[in-house]
């Protein structure tokens, strides 16, 4: 803490940066920094959640029809994969904290693999949407939004398209975060394999873990909002 009156620079640990007084201060700054960053992430996704809320309340039928066309099995499996990856991430932090460095490497590698599995399943889903002409607007040139959906009377195709636009915006933005997360994990894995982290210096692992869990939380909300709401109105589904 700043109040610890540590005046002389501790030269003890190679991980300590010159402008911090000690490891404790450095760790605190890192954790706090990540939390503040996550606040910005919450607000970033918040804008999209707001758009979703508004349009879902405006066009409930269209959204139910569109939502029922998503693959609930793949969505649920992906949710499980991501939760499992959160567990392996937490275990990676845990292993570092208690100094089991081999386990730490294994858990980090597992986290990366699970992240890749998630992205793979996501890619399969995106491909299905591509084949079904469910990609909105002219995002993919030459493949305009033109699904063969049976729409209940009065439901505008345009509003179904809007659901898919929100779907792609939100899951796409989430996937971008996953890619960044996997990148961070790979760097961590590299340094972990070189034995950089230890119980005294595990702050990078811990801070990256916070980010990973946050991405998981976003998905925990996306899954019901995009895949589940409207299932009970199953009759309308095309």
């Amino acid at each position, binding site marked *: 803490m700043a109040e610890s009156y540590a005046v002389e620079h501790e030269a003890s640990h190679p991980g300590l940066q010159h402008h911090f007084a000690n490891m404790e201060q450095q760790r605190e700054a890192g954790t706090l920094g990540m939390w503040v960053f996550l606040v910005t992430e919450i607000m970033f996704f918040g804008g999209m959640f707001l758009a979703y809320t508004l349009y879902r309340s*405006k066009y409930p039928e269209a959204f139910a029809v569109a939502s029922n066309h998503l693959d609930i099995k793949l969505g649920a499996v992906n949710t499980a994969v991501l939760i499992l990856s959160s567990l392996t991430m937490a275990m990676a932090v845990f292993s570092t904290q208690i100094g089991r460095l081999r386990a730490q490497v294994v858990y980090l590698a597992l986290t990366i693999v699970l992240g890749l599995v998630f992205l793979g399943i996501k890619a399969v889903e995106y491909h299905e949407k591509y084949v079904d002409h469910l990609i909105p607007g002219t995002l993919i040139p030459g493949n305009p939004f033109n699904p063969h959906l049976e729409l209940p*009377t*009065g*439901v*505008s195709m345009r509003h179904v398209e809007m659901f898919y636009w929100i779907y792609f915006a939100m899951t796409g933005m989430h996937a971008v975060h996953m890619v960044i997360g996997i990148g961070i994990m790979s760097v961590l894995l590299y340094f972990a394999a070189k034995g950089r982290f230890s119980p005294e210096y595990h702050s990078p692992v811990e801070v990256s873990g916070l980010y990973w869990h946050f991405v998981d939380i976003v998905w925990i909300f996306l899954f019901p909002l995009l895949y589940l709401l409207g299932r009970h109105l199953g009759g309308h589904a095309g």
Partner: protein
Amino acid sequence: MQTSWVPFVPPSASTLSGKVDALYFYLSGVTIFFTLLISGVLIFFVIKYRRRTPYEIPRPIAGSHKLETLWSVIPFIIAMSMFAWGAQLFFENSRPPKNAVEIYVVGKQWMWKIQHSTGQREINELHVPMGRKIKLIMTTEDVIHDFFIPAFRIKTDVIPGRYTTQWFEATKPGRYYLFCAEYCGMNHSGMIGSVVVMDPTEFDSWLGGNASQQSPAVAGQQLFETLGCISCHGAKGEGGRGPALAGVFDRQVFLSNGQNIKADEAYIRESIVNPQAKLVSGFGPIMPTFQGQVSEEQLMQILAFIKSLQIQTPGAATSGAPPATASPATRPESGGR
């Protein structure tokens, strides 16, 4: 153009303008008072307590809770008086009176298209009678515009995909500016026109001078037939597979989700372009959407027709009970849950 005898104030030509001016003068007075007060005290202190010797250290003063309270509470009270005054005036003027004459306005890059209920059309000019309440029902074909008449102190955005309204009662004959106040692209500053306030008798003869044009309601009736609305709603809006439309305007509608809503312009428009949004209780989701199939002007004509149906069922508004032709879905305002 008309000018005002008060310097720096635009001509005042509606029942509202004088009230807005009064609030404006109050706000200006408070602003000038506080600006002079603070500048005066500042200048006095700066001169009186100027530095006299290079290293002098004045005695520190920590602060005063009494003063802090004083100069939080007094500004708050003044601010609330401004809020209340402004809100009350705004509230009063946001609800168009029932007996107002309706004029349809469609904005488009970069002109104003205006149609009177008799069918008379104008572009970038709006002729209105003095002393009568006028309600503008406005929308746009492209981007957001804003219908601004400084002499009346009114302004409202004109928004694609929905209706906005504003109303006024002109008090002085003359020719006043009409501006587009929301930036709308290349020729934004060319999207100006004028409002001509006329003597009521003069206005009536002006309106009658071009009576050959079809009124919006008649045009709306034709659309009602060609678009096939009559097959469900009936030729006179008496209803059938779809809810009855005669007499529905401005009354409470009971929805299938258990809520009540007033059938105003916005609701009728929504029911045409997005019929499933607020289904009338007792009717299935069988109406197709007309989004993108009718132009803004056509929508306004259909709206005018539906409104005119109300007049053709006399007694509905006064009896308090639903007219025989109306579906069970329409209920008098007092019967809402």
